[in-house]
């Protein structure tokens, strides 16, 4: 089989675009798992919720508040959706998750899985399962750019760039700042950090809020590419969990790098043997679990 450089690169770039979504979503899961010890199964549903905040803000918010000409634009949605979903996350943490920390993490998993089913069920009831288009993509991101080896859609390039910026920004805050040192210390020994006088319960609430806000941000980024549908999260989250398992639960850089790499591997597989592209990540997961059960970047405990 002849593989032209151009074919390979174009699929790898598209794969990197998917990888950017995997990276943001698995980063949020890793941050939440690190501090809360909870596997957040509601992550996909909150990603979907983010996309719907953008969609409904564009199509329905204006008429609802009696200003039919008002449309929440894309840039505003990138800020508003994470704030709305972050607030939803804070309510979930305060009223439900916070009661579960003293139990096994299985309970957190069951609770968030239940929430995911409820949120998805409610949206399936009101919206089209096959998806609605989000037509607020800004003019400036239309068209394609010439990368030298291929013409690449501007919007997808934007997704890659902004996702990398958000991921590495989050990494920088966690690994290199004072605020991040509280987070790392709280992940290691929350009781002692409390004993030093740090308000750990508040920190946990805000961390959950931030983690799910990242999911909503990814949801808005995804809206112009994929159609916005109630099941978009559950389709995405299965792959993202495989990414997290491969990268190693709780490792920040691990989740980012693994997300990007696996997106590219998926893209590359499309060129080599397309039918395997949707399963290749799970094959890698099996191999990694056999060889390094804590994941590529995970610490053995």
């Amino acid at each position, binding site marked *: 089989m002849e593989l032209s450089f151009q074919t390979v690169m174009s699929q790898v770039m598209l794969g990197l675009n998917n990888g950017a979504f995997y990276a943001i979503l698995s980063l949020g899961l890793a941050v939440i798992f690190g501090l809360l010890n909870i596997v957040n199964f509601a992550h996909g549903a909150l990603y979907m919720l983010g996309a719907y905040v953008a969609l409904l803000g564009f199509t329905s918010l204006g008429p609802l508040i009696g200003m039919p000409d008002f449309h929440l634009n894309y840039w505003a949605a990138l800020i508003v959706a994470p704030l709305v979903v972050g607030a939803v996350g804070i309510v979930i943490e305060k009223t439900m998750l916070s009661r579960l920390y003293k139990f096994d993490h299985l309970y957190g998993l069951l609770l968030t899985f239940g929430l995911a089913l409820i949120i998805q069920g409610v949206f399936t009831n009101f919206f089209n399962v096959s998806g609605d288009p989000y037509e607020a993509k800004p003019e400036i991101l239309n068209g394609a750019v010439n990368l030298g080896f291929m013409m690449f859609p501007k919007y997808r390039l934007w997704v890659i760039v902004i996702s990398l910026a958000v991921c590495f920004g989050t990494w920088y805050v966690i690994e290199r700042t*004072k605020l991040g040192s509280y987070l790392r210390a709280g992940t290691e020994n929350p009781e002692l950090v409390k004993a*030093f006088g740090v308000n750990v*319960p508040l920190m946990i609430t805000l961390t959950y809020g931030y983690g799910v806000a990242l999911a909503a941000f990814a949801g808005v980024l995804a809206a112009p590419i994929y159609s916005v549908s109630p099941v978009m999260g559950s389709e995405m989250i299965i792959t993202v969990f495989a990414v997290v398992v491969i990268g190693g639960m709780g490792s920040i850089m691990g989740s980012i790098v693994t997300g990007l790499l696996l997106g590219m591997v998926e893209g590359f597989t499309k060129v080599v043997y397309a039918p395997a592209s949707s399963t290749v990540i799970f094959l890698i997961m099996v191999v990694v679990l056999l060889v390094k059960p804590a994941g590529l970047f995970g610490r053995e405990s």
Partner: protein
Amino acid sequence: MTESVHKEMLRISDLHAFYGESHILHGIDLTVGEGEVVTLLGRNGAGRTTILKSIIGLVGRRSGSIAINGVETIRMPTHRIAHLGLGYCPEERGIFSSLTVEENLLLPPVVNEGGMTLSEIYEMFPNLLERRSSMGTRLSGGEQQMLAMARILRTGAKLLLLDEITEGLAPIIVQTLRQLIGQLKEKGFTIILVEQNFHFAAELADRHYVIDHGSIAEMIPRDELGSSMEKLNRYLGV
């Protein structure tokens, strides 16, 4: 020195503490005056560490009364207790492996004015300056202990709860710690020491509480230590 010359800093009355179903402390009463150094002596498992953890709010359930400078803390959330001017050095030292030495030093929030500055701390512990960018748990045991102490001196805490700080350390380091505690005492710090090394404790402390089976068995002031040795040996089983 006797209790009466000190302003009361800590008063514990009828303290009970529980971990899950197990009842660890059975009605502890003790007081510590400002500027005093007090030790908690006793066998392993007698409840000494649990008393320190109860004061800082790290036990599952506690009842009774713990007043710090007259402020009742029994129902206070853990993260607010330290802000009454407490510094805690846990038995396992609690150095964070994902933080550098300097991040470990800067982690505990300042709870009171008058704490040491970072440069004063580095002057006092030159090893920590040299290794400030290493990850916390790369330090030797002695250095980690110095770090665990230095960390709470930065916060301005005036009441220090020190749990087995000499455990497993070389004699030369124990000597340094002895000097350090002596200096802190001169500066007017109030210190509660849980100590296995009786000679270390005997030299420094104004009073000793002997803990046995979760209760206070004896209180021995410094000047009665000589005459109480026999009794003490029976409790400590040495």
